[in-house]
């Protein structure tokens, strides 16, 4: 107890963790946690199921929305715009302007003379009409615009600004309403999705908390023999990852099942509208996104829980 010379060298004989052994450890932790999950099959299956259901709800809603949007996009009842020209207008000149503005659309001119003749032949008022000095009917240009409801809306604004156009009529209110509804639905999906993502994170965090409690003794020993925080955290993060992944897979299975159940009644409904329509189900990209979301939420929930609870477990 006399030698006062410090000997720092003796404490430096640390074992450098190589990248290879680090990767090996990651692999073994990943496999070990997976095995732990499998060992307690039912309880963990239920945990994953909760996550899966929470993920399936907004996704199902989202798929419904996509399909509705698809219907509204492919609706062949495109609005027909009628432009009533003012009395002094030169119909052919206006027609040229309109064709310029509504490029790619079907544009038809019904001159006032044509209109009068049509009316005369179909209404049986020909005698009365011939007695008139002037033709009371305006020339009309009919436009069947291409493009989305928004673009059609803009086109209507432009057309009604033309000098020789008295009035533009179009019946697109219902499409606008549907569109607004779809847009509202999109926000709703985001809000519901965020709420449920929050729920999933908390649920995974809670499951991880229980697991931390169960492995308290092990954590203490690992800390005593020099385990770093990252080392202690690792198995729990993998646990979160597996829960998220399991939840995502169950979510996809449930959605697939739901689609199968919904397909038949939906086809009956669609057939009644005599429309051709194919249900857009889960695509590979959706599955990939769900898996990614599940994994991210899993790791997030786990790291939140680990951050909160691991600090409290210190050897005494």
């Amino acid at each position, binding site marked *: 107890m006399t*030698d006062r010379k410090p000997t720092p060298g003796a404490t430096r004989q640390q*074992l450098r963790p190589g990248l290879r052994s680090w990767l090996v450890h990651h692999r073994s932790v990943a496999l070990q946690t997976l095995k732990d999950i499998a060992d307690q099959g039912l309880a963990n299956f239920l945990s994953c199921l909760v996550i899966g259901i929470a993920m399936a709800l907004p996704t199902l809603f989202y798929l419904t929305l996509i399909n509705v949007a698809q219907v509204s996009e492919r609706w062949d009842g495109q609005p027909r715009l009628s432009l009533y020209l003012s009395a002094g207008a030169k119909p052919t000149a206006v027609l040229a302007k309109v064709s310029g503005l509504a490029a790619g659309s079907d544009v038809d001119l019904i001159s006032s003379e044509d209109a009068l003749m049509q009316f005369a032949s179909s209404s049986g008022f020909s005698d009365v009409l011939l007695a008139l000095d002037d033709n009371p009917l305006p020339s009309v240009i009919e436009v069947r615009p291409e493009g989305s409801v928004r673009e059609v809306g803009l086109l209507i604004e432009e057309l009604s600004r033309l000098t020789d156009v008295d009035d533009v009529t179009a019946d697109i209110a219902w499409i606008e309403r549907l569109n607004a509804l779809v847009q509202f639905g999109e926000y709703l999906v985001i809000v519901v999705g965020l709420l449920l993502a929050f729920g999933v994170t908390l649920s995974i965090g809670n499951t991880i908390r229980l697991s931390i409690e169960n492995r308290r003794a092990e954590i203490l020993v690992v800390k005593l023999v020099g385990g770093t925080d990252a080392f202690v955290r690792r198995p729990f993060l993998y646990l979160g990852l597996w829960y998220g992944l399991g939840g995502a897979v169950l979510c996809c299975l449930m959605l697939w099942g739901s689609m199968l159940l919904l397909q038949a009644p939906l086809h009956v409904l669609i057939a009644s509208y005599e429309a051709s329509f194919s249900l857009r189900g889960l695509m590979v990209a959706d599955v990939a996104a769900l898996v990614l979301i599940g994994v991210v939420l899993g790791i997030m929930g786990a790291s939140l829980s680990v951050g909160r609870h691991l600090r409290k477990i210190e050897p005494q």
Partner: protein
Amino acid sequence: MIRFDAVSKRYPGGRDALSDVSFEIAERQMVFLTGHSGAGKSTLLKLIMLMERPSRGQVFVGGQNLARLGRRQIPGLRRQVGVVFQNHQLLFDRTVYDNVALPLLIAGLGQKETGRRVRAALSKVGLSGKEGQLPIALSGGEQQRVGIARAVVNKPPVLLADEPTGNLDPVLSREIMALFGEFNQVGVTVLIATHDLELIEEIDHPKMQLSAGRVVS
């Protein structure tokens, strides 16, 4: 190797576990820390491992001032200090091999090297061939040996033991103490806390006695 400079430790509630403790243990020395239960032996060991921090004074291990070590540097210190506990602190759901291999796993050692060192440590404590058993299947003395193997498998320069023979009969206790002596012979600095004066009477190593938190001899 281990130096205490006027160290005091007061636990919340006002109990002084250590008051003004100063001593130095040289490299390669083996020292017994004696005293009654509650004299502060465990607290002293905990300060060396940073399981506790002193209220006053400074602790040095290997020339390093532990007050300068932050939370993140604690694992590094603990890898330099092997510890044997009275209650073993073994993981009862892991095999003997896995228990002993834990410090090497943490240090990131390769599988081959780990296997070699674990077998060497187990053979050193006389437990060759028990790698695959669960600790629960072993006797108390054997469990303690597993704990010792785990403490030395990483070849730490410092070895601490807190009542390592607390639950063992005199014959086993003597064997365990002899084992610590062997580690000391190969250059490990050893500090053993024990209240079993009879046992260490015949062993020729410095003894430091704590009483009510003070060094009395």
